[in-house]
């Protein structure tokens, strides 16, 4: 255990929406890994809700979410989540990306991607990482409404 390397510094944040082409390229990069038999992906897309950000109803539709983050802390908090996922499931790799800035309804803001030999492992790891990121990372979302007002999104 004394020989464990310091975790790599990774930045999960992307400015603006996550481009579907980037997702396709991420999948394609794994073609050389012949030990992988299953890829599991979660994609978060901004909804045009009539919601007030915390479970109630608003009078206007959401047109975009403006995401901000405490970037250094979020990237630090991501390290134990990754370690927990690798400790619990024999996944080959795990990739997490989250948007910063204004993401319009219909655009992608969150991408979680795990690969493993068999499907169940990747599926469980993605579900776990998706939930923990929502719970533990200091990311804030301002829902911009069509009437010019805004509400602050709260994860439940």
């Amino acid at each position, binding site marked *: 255990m004394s020989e464990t390397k310091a975790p790599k510094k990774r930045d999960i944040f992307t400015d603006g929406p996550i481009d579907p082409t980037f997702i396709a390229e991420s999948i394609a990069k794994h073609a050389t890994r012949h030990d992988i038999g299953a890829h599991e992906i979660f994609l978060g897309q901004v909804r045009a809700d009539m919601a007030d950000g915390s479970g109630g109803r608003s009078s206007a539709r959401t047109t975009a979410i403006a995401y901000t*983050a*405490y970037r250094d*802390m979020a990237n630090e908090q991501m390290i134990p989540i990754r370690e927990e996922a690798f400790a619990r499931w024999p996944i080959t790799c795990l990739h997490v990306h989250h948007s910063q800035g204004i993401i319009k309804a219909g655009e992608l803001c969150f991408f979680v991607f795990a690969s493993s030999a068999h499907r169940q492992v990747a599926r469980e790891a993605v579900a776990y990482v998706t939930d923990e*990121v929502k719970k533990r990372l*200091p990311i804030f979302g301002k829902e911009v409404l069509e009437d010019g007002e805004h509400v602050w999104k709260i994860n439940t």
Partner: protein
Amino acid sequence: MLFGLIAEKAGTDRLTISAPDTGALRQALEERIEGLSSLSYALAVDRKITHENIELSGSEEIALLPPFAGG
């Protein structure tokens, strides 16, 4: 450092306040930022959420975090 709803309420994302510990800091912040005491927020010291009262030297990175909304 202030984020999200708290930065909006304070009208800034940076504040300078002197306090000997996090308990006194919370009290000073709640007096300074209107409505903060009725909000749910976390205090992070050097990027770690802190619930107990800890002493501050003045060199720490302090952040006020409203509820998280990632995903």
